[in-house]
């Protein structure tokens, strides 16, 4: 596994990290997949009167990992939460501008946030297994409320297994599916949450600093998993860790003060940033 050779990349310059697998050529992709996955146009997000996201227009490609980096408080998480309409669950929060996911305006009239969230899964900073549910029930939790899954309800066990396998957790928990999810380690809990998000087969999965509360080994596992996921699902990951962005993402967006400074391939952003502010940030001059 390529990532295991990079466990401690903090010691060397980011740009020197070997990243041969990144930037899979666009030409290899089947036609129809060239359509971007998420497109935002003049997106603004507010908490009351405070604008946390200002006029962000960006495009996230399908089946790739896009990282959002930037200093604390720059609006990374808020931007991410605009992609599945979680931002508006905070009292006093609102969104202006347009967000399209696979061609549908998710803030359009008649679009319910619930439907959006079924297509756009999310994993949070801290693992959030449901404490009253078993491991199996946790993974199946999203299926239970999804009207699409009623047809093949008989396959719940299969879906659970598949989701756990995709999250790299199946072999660790297959003998204790009916035990409490709370008995798992932090890293396992986080991968369980990823499995739970995958079980509804979303087209996009949003990761909000998914390794912020994990130890290095669990972090590595989650990163490997993110790298695998890019083959089947579009991933947007928010991270405060630039090395992590460099390791797992194809494209990286740099956000500062709620504005999008630069969005390009991860390689270019870290080796040849166009904006002096990006360069200042990645060389550690602030943030």
């Amino acid at each position, binding site marked *: 596994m390529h990532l295991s050779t990079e466990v401690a990349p903090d010691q060397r310059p980011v740009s020197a990290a070997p990243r041969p697998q990144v930037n899979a050529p666009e030409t290899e992709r089947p036609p129809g997949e060239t359509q971007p996955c998420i497109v935002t146009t003049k997106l603004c997000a507010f908490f009351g009167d405070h604008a946390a996201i200002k006029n962000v227009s960006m495009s996230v490609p399908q089946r790739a990992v896009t990282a959002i980096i930037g200093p604390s408080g720059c609006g990374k998480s808020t931007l991410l939460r605009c992609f599945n309409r979680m931002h508006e669950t905070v009292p006093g929060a609102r969104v202006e501008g347009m967000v399209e996911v696979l061609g549908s305006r998710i803030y359009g009239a008649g679009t319910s946030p619930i439907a959006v969230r079924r297509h756009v899964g999310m994993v949070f900073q801290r693992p959030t297994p449901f*404490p009253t549910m078993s491991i199996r029930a946790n993974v199946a939790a999203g299926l239970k409320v999804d009207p699409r899954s009623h047809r093949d309800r008989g396959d719940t066990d299969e879906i659970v297994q598949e989701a756990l396998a995709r999250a790299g957790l199946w072999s660790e928990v297959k003998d204790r599916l009916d035990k409490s999810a709370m008995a798992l380690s932090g890293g396992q809990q986080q991968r369980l949450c990823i499995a739970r998000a995958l079980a*509804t087969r979303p087209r996009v999965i949003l990761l909000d600093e998914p390794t912020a509360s994990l130890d290095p080994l669990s972090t590595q596992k989650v990163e490997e998993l993110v790298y695998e996921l890019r083959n089947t699902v579009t991933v947007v990951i928010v991270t405060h860790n630039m090395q992590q962005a460099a390791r797992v993402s194809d494209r990286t967006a740099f956000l500062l003060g709620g504005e999008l400074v630069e969005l390009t391939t991860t390689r270019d952003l870290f080796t040849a940033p166009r904006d002096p502010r990006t360069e200042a940030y990645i060389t550690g001059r602030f943030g």
Partner: protein
Amino acid sequence: MIRTARRRHATSGVMIGLTYLAAILATLPLLLILLHLVKQGASSLSPSFFTNTPRPVGEAGGGMANAIVGTLVLIGIAVAIGLPVGIGAGLYLSEKKTTPLAHSVRFLSDVLNGLPSIVIGIFAWEFLVRPVGHFSALAGGVALGAMMIPLVTRTTEEMLGVVPTSLREAALALGYSQWRTSVSIVLRTALAGIATGALVAVARIAGETAPLLFTAFGNQFWSTAVREPIAALPLQIFTYAISPYDTWHQQAWAGALVLISIVLIISIAARFVTRSRFGAPVD
């Protein structure tokens, strides 16, 4: 320096001693009451106490079967009213924390909680006894239910407040509706705590006498009809305790012992319910 340190140690020692004393004093009344009740009441407890209805003075073999069942009926009515209303109100308070309605509900439920129970009894009499012209189990149950509501409301709100926002967000992000999130994730997670609160509330109302005096009224005969006056342990104890007969005094002691046992059993049940399905405490 050394003198002040020594003094600090001495002060600390005295204070710790005082808290020990207070801790013991806090449990002393319960222990004394239990000991005394067992001493006085156990001798009058017999199978017939649990199977027979009261008999006239001088006749042996009387029991409080009707009062025990009556108390259970009254608790049943109270729970049927207090639990759904209390949990529903608590859910509302935790979901809509800052609306004007929430503020007034919170305040009024505290007022209701502090209301003397006899006042609640008068109220139930005014609306449920006077119009129909006779006492009833229903009126007693409603009075007890009204006492339960604020207790359950506040515990529910407290327990729901402890459920982390991150769980709520996780459910919403999975495509749960607001309502579904509240019921099957938040309420479900807090259920053990709410159940404990509900059982504590039941234990609290089980022994109430004042609200029953002119609602359930008491009954010397076997009855489980909700529209008729019904016997209740606290009322039976009251009647027997103020009577001039020694045998009735003995029965009152036995009744008190049974009543305390019921409350204890409910409290212990509450402890067990708090444990989660997986044997580990829910945090």
